[in-house]
């Protein structure tokens, strides 16, 4: 009796399995292998916008690649899967996130977004053969003996001097004031900004005013700064959420000089928060301004907008990390699970930059700042905000 029941059950299960296999689309058998790329960064809380623009850039690009057949590395074609971990801007959670990536045998990770998180994950990444692309500026992550971190953007100590020099030469700036949030990233960016300004011979009239990251009314913060009457007010490390309010408060206090930031900003956010008061605001962006954007960049923006309802200008820079990972792996397929091979290829990579006009190349840079190629070469596009959108002021390159 028992044997008969087991026989019947087995037959039913086998029948369902056979039917399912016949019903399954043929393509399912021919599915590409998965190439899993990690993200460890902040996607919740006050700084969520930084990490979410990373994740959404990666997801948009991955979906686009998968839709068009996958990414061919060596003789294999892979579908891209993005594995994300929200570190909540907490270094302890960032370590947990990187450990999760290691457990899942992921070798290439984008993030973390802030200095302390990027520094915290370094031992985990190095012990587990993970190359990671932080959006954090401490030089110790990128100079020897460190070798697994690759800076994913232009650092403020690279963009700041270029912007100040431009404004000194073209706009006659002589006096500069700095204001920043009381957090490690903005504070370190302010320090390097002050050093760069002094090196150019500019007079720093205020460099000790900071604000809490959760400040919503910046009038009291900026009151003493504006009274120093600077020609240029630098918002060091300003988060996109704070920038419009800072601009608005400064203008309402009667400040008529220039305002700049060395962090990526979002034109829509500035328009909503500061409106015409933000005209003339200078910041660093990626490659989506009409002068340099290719059809691929425009398609990326369109796909991102379609997937998530609204584009984020910060993603102009953040789309690049994934592209660098793919191009390096294409150039050396052995690097798919061997980060030492990846590092070797970083020395020589020169692939087409599909997002920027003018024959720009994807290549690793950083020799001047770090003594080794541990930075992606993204265009340093200095933008000026005007009437709801960014206009290119000038373009420069790191190294």
């Amino acid at each position, binding site marked *: 009796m028992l044997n008969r029941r087991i026989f019947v059950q087995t037959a039913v299960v086998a029948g369902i399995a056979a039917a399912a296999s016949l019903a399954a689309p043929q393509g399912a058998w021919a599915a590409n292998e998965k190439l899993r790329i990690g993200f460890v960064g902040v996607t919740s809380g006050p700084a969520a916008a930084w990490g979410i623009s990373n994740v959404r850039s990666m997801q948009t690009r991955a979906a686009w690649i998968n839709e068009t057949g996958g990414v061919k590395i060596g003789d294999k074609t892979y579908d891209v899967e993005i594995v994300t971990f929200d570190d909540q801007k907490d270094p302890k959670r960032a370590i947990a996130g990187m450990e999760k990536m290691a457990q899942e045998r992921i070798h290439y990770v984008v993030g973390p977004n802030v200095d302390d998180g990027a520094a915290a994950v370094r031992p985990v990444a190095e012990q587990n053969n993970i190359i990671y692309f932080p959006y954090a500026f401490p030089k110790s992550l990128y100079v020897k003996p460190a070798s697994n971190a690759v800076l994913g953007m232009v650092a403020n100590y690279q963009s700041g001097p270029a912007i100040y020099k431009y404004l000194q030469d073209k706009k006659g700036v002589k006096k500069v004031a700095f204001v920043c949030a009381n957090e490690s990233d903005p504070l370190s960016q302010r320090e390097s900004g002050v050093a760069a300004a002094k090196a150019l011979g500019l007079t720093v009239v205020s460099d000790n005013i900071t604000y809490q990251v*959760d400040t919503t*009314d910046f009038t009291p913060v900026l009151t003493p700064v504006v009274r120093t009457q600077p020609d240029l007010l630098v918002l060091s490390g300003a988060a996109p959420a704070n920038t419009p309010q800072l601009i608005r408060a400064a203008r309402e206090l009667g400040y008529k000089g220039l305002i700049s930031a060395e962090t990526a900003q979002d034109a829509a956010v500035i328009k909503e928060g500061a409106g015409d008061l933000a005209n003339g605001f200078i910041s660093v962006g990626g490659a989506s301004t009409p002068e340099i954007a290719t059809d691929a960049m425009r398609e990326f923006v369109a796909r991102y907008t379609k997937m998530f309802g609204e584009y984020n200008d910060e993603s102009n820079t953040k789309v690049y990390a994934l592209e660098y990972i793919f191009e390096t792996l294409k150039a050396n397929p052995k690097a798919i699970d061997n980060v030492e091979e990846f590092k070797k290829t970083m020395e020589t990579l020169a692939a087409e930059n599909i997002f920027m006009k003018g024959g720009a190349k994807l290549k690793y840079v950083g020799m001047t700042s770090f003594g080794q190629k541990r930075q992606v070469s993204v265009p340093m596009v200095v933008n000026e905000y005007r009437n709801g959108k960014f206009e290119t002021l000038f373009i420069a390159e790191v190294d």
Partner: protein
Amino acid sequence: MEQIIANGLYLGAQYALIALGLTLIFALMNVLNFAHGQMYVIGGFVTYTVYAQLGLPFVVGVAASGVTLAIIGALVQKFLFGPVIRKSVREESTMLLAAGLAFLLDAVVLLLFGEKQRGVPKIVNGIFNYNDYTIVMPYDKILVGVLAILAIAAFILYMQYSKTGRAMRALAQDKVAAQLMGVDVDRYSIIGFALGAMLAGVVGGLLVTVTGINLGMGGPTSIKAFMMVMIGGAGVISGAIAGGFILGMLESVGLTVLAAYGDITYLVIFASLMVFLAIRPQGLMGKPWG
């Protein structure tokens, strides 16, 4: 100094309104509503949607924020806090529930409104400029400050003279005695929570015109609201108002006077608060409803 006082008064008015809803909920149900800041954020996003996205008048946006949050508050009390208060005598049960609710609302806000900072067009253009920038105050801030003070006054009058207000005050003073006098505890708890949440929504709607709104504002707003309540005395309306104005003035004075020493304003405020609470743990105004 004139500018510092003006900044402090403006901050105080908006802070007091934020603290009122929190202290009302605490007074009625002994619930520390850690989700108060998230309710403020939802209020801001509702006004943003109605005023900036749909193009309806600003006043409709603020009203929509108030109504939305009142409904959310009533539902939260009826289906979450009410049952927990009835079943559990441990106060930490409601605290954990409130913390969980804060996380939930954060996630809901992210899903519905996204991660970006949002702002709305100015409701009034222009700047009040007294004596060549001796005192500068944008007209929209003045309007928001006046509206906040009017809302506070309306709230006090409502609590003082309406039947519902008297019932809620009775509940806050002595729940058992109020029940014996025929006050429906469940009903007025729902009304009280709805009113507290509505205040958070209204202030979110008002301030979105000045500060904008984003996902991350909830937690810090709750912390500041708790500070004001601690200064003034938990569960005391006049205490919340006093706490709001004191915190606003301390912040304004500190940010200017202490600027040369770095960002130590909140360090000084927190240290002073600890000393103050060690001396007077019940805050300035003492017991609920005085």
